[in-house]
């Protein structure tokens, strides 16, 4: 295929993925009308979407909406994070009516509150609540994780009125693994400079996987991988190579990502949930699929450590520094969603470790309602100027850069 038509095809794939990300519930409505199937929503992080897929449903991870909070103000206090307030608002406004069931996990205290508020708003929607053990290195962790997933499977079967067969589950696991591998391939190619994907485009690739029919998604991502050859435009070499960290439940706003890269940076890696965190770990394809899912839950925390889980032998900060070395990243921008308690709790450790390692980082707190982009731009540009000027400076400087929100 000629380069021009290949680029055009890649552009149209990314545009399609972007459309799904912009209106995920619109996609669900369209899928439902097309297939007549059921849509099972879930909170982010550790829900095994393979299970709902194996039951013939469309698993959809509920996304933060762009709209300002209106009806949701009557249900959740303003000191809840943007993701929980937006989810409750979408429920209160009837947007989540497209979901036939919702699976809630207890990943943080705010999600628990949001689950209750959604349950109150969606009286006709089946709400399934499941708890996952958060202590990851106890002798009983694997068993307890498996028990939780077994319970979730039973609830799903009860709701759907049919069994989730092991063979179907294995098939779904294989499909999801293949999709994750294709997305990880794009990450590898980006680090190696073999493909030029912006941070927003990478978010489209991953976020759309949380929404779309997986087979449809896989076809598009594999076409992206196949289309990216040595002729793909490489990123600007003089740009500062950045790692993005944080944002667990909600996707960072594309305008923020575009602004960061527009300041002269290129994002080469991340641990965002709408990024590498979501695709880091595959599920075992052999043996008992429930056992494999329980292992996946444990492995995810070593793949990309999560501040909502407790594991004595895993350090998030050490993981970040190691990832940045592999990516040859020169600095990190931490995107912290306002009122995200797990992130707030762990950030001081990350800050200390980065200062000790002499690795520059910048903290940006994000909000659902508004962001003073011009002010943030000044801080990002200053940070990049600092990193760039240190390229040529004597290596006596050990302090890290921190542009805090005042």
């Amino acid at each position: 295929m000629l380069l021009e038509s290949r680029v055009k095809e890649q552009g149209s794939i990314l545009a399609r993925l972007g459309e799904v990300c912009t209106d995920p519930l619109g996609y669900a409505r369209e899928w439902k009308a097309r297939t007549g199937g059921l849509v099972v929503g879930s909170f982010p992080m550790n829900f095994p979407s393979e299970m709902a897929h194996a039951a013939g449903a469309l698993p959809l991870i509920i996304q933060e909406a762009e709209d300002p909070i209106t009806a949701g103000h009557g249900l959740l206090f303003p000191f809840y994070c943007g993701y929980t307030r937006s989810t409750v608002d979408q429920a209160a406004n009837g947007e989540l009516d497209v979901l036939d069931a919702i699976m809630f996990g207890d990943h943080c205290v705010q999600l628990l509150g949001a689950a209750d508020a959604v349950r109150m708003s969606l009286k006709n929607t089946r709400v399934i609540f499941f708890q996952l053990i958060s202590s990851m290195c106890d002798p009983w962790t694997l068993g307890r994780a498996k028990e939780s997933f077994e319970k979730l499977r039973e609830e799903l079967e009860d709701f759907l009125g049919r069994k989730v067969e092991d063979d179907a589950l294995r098939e779904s696991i294989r499909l999801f693994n293949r999709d994750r591998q294709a997305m990880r391939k794009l990450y590898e190619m980006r680090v190696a400079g073999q493909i030029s994907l912006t941070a927003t485009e990478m978010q489209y690739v991953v976020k759309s996987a949380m929404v779309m029919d997986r087979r449809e998604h896989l076809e598009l991502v594999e076409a992206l991988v196949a289309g990216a050859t040595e002729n793909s435009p490489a990123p600007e070499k003089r740009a500062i190579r950045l790692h993005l960290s944080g944002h667990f439940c909600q996707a960072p706003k594309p305008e923020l990502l575009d602004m960061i890269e527009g300041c002269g940076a290129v994002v080469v890696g991340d641990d965002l949930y709408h990024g590498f965190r979501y695709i880091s770990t595959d599920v075992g394809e052999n043996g008992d699929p429930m056992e494999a899912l329980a292992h996946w839950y444990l492995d995810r925390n070593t793949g990309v450590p999560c501040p909502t889980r407790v594991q004595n032998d895993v350090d998030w900060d050490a993981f970040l520094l190691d990832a940045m070395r592999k990516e040859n990243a020169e600095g990190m921008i931490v995107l912290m969603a306002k009122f995200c308690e797990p992130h707030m709790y762990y950030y001081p450790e990350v800050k200390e470790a980065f200062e000790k390692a002499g690795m520059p980082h910048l903290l940006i707190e994000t909000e659902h309602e508004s962001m003073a982009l011009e002010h943030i731009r000044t801080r990002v540009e200053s940070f990049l100027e600092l990193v760039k000027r240190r390229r040529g400076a004597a290596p006596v400087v050990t302090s890290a850069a921190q542009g805090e929100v005042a």
Partner: protein
Amino acid sequence: MKKHVMGIDFGSTTAKAVVLDMQGNIVAWSVAHMGAVSDAAVHQAVDDVLAQAGLEQKDIGRCVSTGYGRRMLDIADKNFTEITCHARGAVAMVPEARLVIDIGGQDSKTISVDANGLVAQFAMNDRCAAGTGKFLEVLARAMEIELDEMGDIAMGAKQELKISSMCATFAETEVISLRAEGNSKEDVLGAVHQAIATRTLGLVNRVGKKGPVVMTGGVARNKAAVHYIEKALGMPVILPKTPQIAGALGAALIGLDDYKAELAESGESLDEDHDVDAQMAFDKSCVSGCKGDPVAAAQTAPAATSKLKSMLGNLQKHF
């Protein structure tokens, strides 16, 4: 080879321009007040500084812009943020500075400067105009006085009042309320400046309280703001003679580095100074021979003497 560079600080309320010669000496500077991010102001500042220097735009080897409007200037070859430029300008004006407090029209920043004279850490307000020139402007209006009078009047405060809100709009309500309670203008304005100082102290602690402290930006010309900030910090604040032009000066110095590096790459010699490397090292360090300890650097007379000798030698050759 051209013999001058220019720095422009296109700020939110004023525009500043500085012209330097190839040794980094200020040839001319100008400040123009024409309203928010005003094209007219920036043109006035640029025209004025060129006229003072007896130059035209085509005589400028490198032009670097900074400030809110930094990306709006066609004449600028490059742009850098206020944080980078104020840090550079402040250490050029006050070589021993290790902490820069810059309070401008719409934002306030604290910048710690490391041993290389580069930004080590910074913090800035990013949600509202709390603790900025705009905060003072709004409250001057509420008090029905001129902005320039504020500092002098506030210095006459006799009792300590408190303004608890950092939001300019809410603080305006508090100011009106304090006046309605019969408090004097002096005391209320003292509280306004105390509020600025408290906010600044918070920003300083984000980057680490250390000295020597230098203050730049328009608010540095307000003696009450400086007084209350010194009181809050418990440290003296060094004021450059022209704190408003620190950003433009920093931009010009960065432009000078850049221009000299380009000349060195192209093999073109500098008329006034053949020792490009020494000059670059000089410009890049906060003070001659600085090794991270400004006190120690002040004693490294040989480095400064050698530079002076080199410059004198070149001057003699010239004549």
